[in-house]
């Protein structure tokens, strides 16, 4: 199969503008006759559904949540990037493009990323007009901060709740279209299959999660905006119900899963406290601006801390290893996410970790408290004795990070003003996703994928504050236009019937699949399988990967899958409200995706971005890319349980030079 990226000709900076003005349009009277299904109401789905509704298409929008406003996007904290250059600090569309390509370790498509940087500015205008309360300066203009190790301030933010505010904006725009009747909204409807007719995506099968009823929905095109698959690791910062099933079912019907081994592990999350743990909580990256990361130099001290015989405060300065400052003097605690995460793993693997599980490192604010306290005391002419300095310093830290400190205390029960926080890396985001071309169309005609669900813009590593940007770029400013390319060829196609053999067969397949899960009537819970799967993927396809582990992981996942189909226990029936059944179907799909993820990691014998292969390192032990052999997108075809097949899209770089990332 040849993967055609359909990147338009012309100079990089002009591609999108020219393409947009030459794309075939659909006349308003025809738009009314065309139906589009959008699955998902996160930033990508809600913005796409609302915008296509405004344009006059007939949209049917689906979410498994009880309301469109609950999508996982709601939880994003830090901010959203845009090349507005409001701070006049030298930012530009090209610089945002360049940072994103470089940050992605040269594994994304130039033309897509440039377009993303171009439309980023429109997003901020649109959201502000909708009433998104971005942070402002005293003069009333929008404020920015610098985020994720870039040299310009281009991140717009809404306190620590940027995702919430952006999603509410998109949800409100969607609500307006629902009221107008241009979007039919189906809450608590989970897509369980894609329906193809004559090779084109023409509809979906859903399960009404309240009644259990299976339904067939048809349309001229289908858009997946169904988010990332981080929960394949079981423990992640994703919402509990985030899952891969919509995308995976599309793969089962011929779409391709691109780069599933590119996953982002965020260095600052609250460590696991026990095996009942259901999810992990992110502590914003901004904490690394003031916190110093360390572990005890000696294993004995680490052991004593683990067992509660000592605390961080008992370890004197000389006995602490500030390993990031030691290994990366130029960037110190501010190295990129992937580097910081791996370094924490190394420290813990060597036996110097500090949490009760041994998997934790300290994030210490005492130096910052002293430094800020002293500055403050001096500038206000107050006493510089220890107690006063500490008190003033704590106030400053509280102003900067008060809500995060409070959240940490709620979860851990420890006061981070007195003792260093404990943190550990966790899965946070998935750069991989459904393969799409420049139009965001998959290799299945009429099937599109947007937002975190596609693989398109972040290469092997995503920069902070860029996922929100991509979701909204896709939904507001890209897909509603590029989908016209396909739909303009469909204006003579009548309403798609949903009672054709293809639909009836697909519904039957779903029914049998679900009933099959219940009929197993085994002895182990769905949750226990999900936990085991997560552990296998985390251990073999987590922060650091090697051939032996990956092969072992693949064998283990396959064995687990067999066991699942023999011994899982799903209570209840398919025709009722049944959360265990929902989970079971999702975990079944995670197993197949998980296996594919390991295959992808095994195939890619280079280290790039979030993917670290122990076989591919520099003399100093740092990640080493292999541009000669791996400058391609690996798009995987599911092969009915046999080894999945890889298809390659070669990446071409005409506008940037491929360089080695160095943080020494």
């Amino acid at each position, binding site marked *: 199969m040849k993967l055609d990226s359909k990147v338009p000709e012309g100079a990089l900076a002009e591609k999108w503008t020219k393409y947009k003005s030459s794309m075939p349009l659909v006349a308003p009277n025809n738009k009314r006759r065309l139906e589009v299904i959008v699955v998902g109401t996160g930033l990508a789905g809600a913005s796409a559904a*609302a*915008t296509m509704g*405004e344009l006059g298409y007939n949209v049917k929008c689906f979410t498994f*949540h009880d309301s469109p*406003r*609950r999508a*996982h996007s709601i*939880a994003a904290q830090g901010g959203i990037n845009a090349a*507005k250059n*409001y701070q006049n600090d030298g930012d530009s569309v090209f610089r945002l493009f360049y940072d994103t390509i470089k940050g992605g370790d040269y594994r994304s498509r130039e033309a897509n990323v440039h377009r993303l940087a171009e439309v980023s500015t*429109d997003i*901020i*205008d*649109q*959201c*502000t*007009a*909708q*009433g998104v*309360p*971005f*942070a*402002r300066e005293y*003069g*009333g*203009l*929008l404020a920015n901060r610098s985020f994720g190790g870039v040299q310009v301030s281009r991140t717009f933010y*809404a*306190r620590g709740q940027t995702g*919430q505010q952006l999603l*509410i904006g998109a*949800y*409100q*725009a969607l*609500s*307006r279209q*629902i*009221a107008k009747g241009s979007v039919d*909204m189906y809450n608590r409807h989970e897509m369980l299959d894609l329906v193809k007719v004559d090779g084109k995506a023409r509809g979906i099968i859903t399960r009404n999660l*309240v009644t259990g009823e299976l339904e067939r929905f048809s349309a001229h095109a289908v858009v997946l905006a169904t988010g990332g698959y981080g929960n394949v690791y079981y423990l992640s910062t994703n*919402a*509990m*119900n985030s899952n891969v099933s919509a995308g995976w079912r599309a793969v089962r019907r011929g779409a391709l899963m691109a780069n599933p081994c590119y996953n982002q592990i965020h260095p600052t999350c609250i460590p696991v406290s*026990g095996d009942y*743990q*259901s999810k992990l*909580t992110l502590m914003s990256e901004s904490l690394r601006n003031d916190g110093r990361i360390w572990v005890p130099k000696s294993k004995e001290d680490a052991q004593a801390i683990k067992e509660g015989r000592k605390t961080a405060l008992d370890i004197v300065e000389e006995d602490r290893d500030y390993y990031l400052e030691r290994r990366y003097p130029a960037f110190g605690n501010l190295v990129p996410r992937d580097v910081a995460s791996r370094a924490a793993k190394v420290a813990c693997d060597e036996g110097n970790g500090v949490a009760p599980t041994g998997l934790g490192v300290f994030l210490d604010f005492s130096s910052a408290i002293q430094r800020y306290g002293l500055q403050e005391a001096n500038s206000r002419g107050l006493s510089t004795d220890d107690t006063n300095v500490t008190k003033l310093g704590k106030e400053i830290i509280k102003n900067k990070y008060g809500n995060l400190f409070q959240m940490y205390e*709620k*979860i*851990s*029960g420890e006061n981070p003003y007195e003792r260093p926080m404990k943190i550990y890396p966790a899965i946070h985001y998935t750069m991989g996703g459904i393969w799409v071309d420049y139009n965001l169309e998959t290799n299945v005609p009429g099937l599109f994928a947007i937002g975190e669900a596609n693989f398109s813009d972040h290469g092997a590593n995503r920069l902070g504050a860029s996922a929100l940007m991509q979701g909204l770029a896709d939904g*507001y400013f890209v897909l509603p236009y590029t989908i016209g390319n396909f739909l303009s060829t469909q204006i003579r196609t009548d309403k798609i019937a949903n009672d054709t053999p293809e639909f009836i067969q697909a519904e039957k397949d779903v029914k049998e699949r679900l009933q099959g899960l219940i009929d197993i009537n085994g*002895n182990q*819970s769905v*949750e226990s399988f999900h936990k085991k799967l997560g552990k296998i993927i985390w251990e073999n396809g987590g922060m650091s990967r090697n051939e032996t582990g990956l092969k072992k992981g693949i064998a283990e996942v396959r064995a687990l899958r067999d066991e699942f189909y023999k011994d899982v*226990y799903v*209570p*209840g029936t398919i025709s009722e*409200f049944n959360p*265990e059944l929902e989970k079971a179907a999702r975990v079944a799909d995670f197993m197949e995706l998980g296996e594919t993820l390991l295959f992808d990691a095994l195939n890619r014998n280079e280290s790039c971005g979030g993917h670290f292969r122990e076989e591919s390192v520099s003399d100093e032990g740092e990640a080493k890319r292999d541009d000669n052999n791996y400058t391609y997108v690996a798009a995987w075809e599911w092969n009915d349980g046999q080894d999945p097949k890889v298809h390659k899209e070669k990446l071409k770089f005409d506008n940037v030079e491929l360089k080695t990332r160095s943080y020494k």
Partner: protein
Amino acid sequence: MKLNLKIWRQSGPNDKGYFDMHSVEANEHMSFLEMLDVLNEQLISEKKDPIAFAHDCREGICGTCNLVIDGRPHGPQKGTTTCQLHMRQYKDDDTIVIEPFRATAFPIIKDLVVDRSSLDGVIQAGGYISVNTGQAVDANAIPVEQEVAADAFDSATCIGCGACIAACPNGSAMLFTSAKVSHLGKLPQGKVEHKKRVQNMVAQMDKEGFGLCSNVGACEAECPKEISLDNIAFMNRAFIGSVLTTED
């Protein structure tokens, strides 16, 4: 610690429902919902029907979780959602009563899960600014005073959980609705449609089956995002204003 749980069970909207007693072994580091996960694993291992409860982000931001714990929506801790509550609030042998959010406009789906689509209905009636994609002016073309923006933001933090309605003896959605009205109505972008928005949203509250507000104030006390009663006052001013102006 061993806990005694008195939990509401109800198989569907038309079932009468009853309290069931369970006991579970928990530890202080667990979140409240993790404690229920443990109970559910226990029930599943006995091949019994697990307890249905709603949740998603488990970080206090999505607004999905909705338990009434010992009579209080979202439990005893101020400014905290159910999912953020941790078991260190409890001690060995405590008895905890767990119920769903109850209100006429929130029919029960199963056990502790309710249908809150009525809240979406209120937003669809006008909880937005009418601007199509691509119509916006440059974001810095309309400066907004920092305090005004902060004030609007405080209202915009509502997570749409419905605790205010569950707390209200009348099942009124005034706090929820007024939070949206204030968020949009305080910003220059949202002022144009303000009066119409208030009329439409208030009318929709009625249609969705929410009760009238009699200034009890329980909503503010139980709101996990500490949305203030001032929002209701702000909306009332506009409502009275809009009724007067449309009548003449």
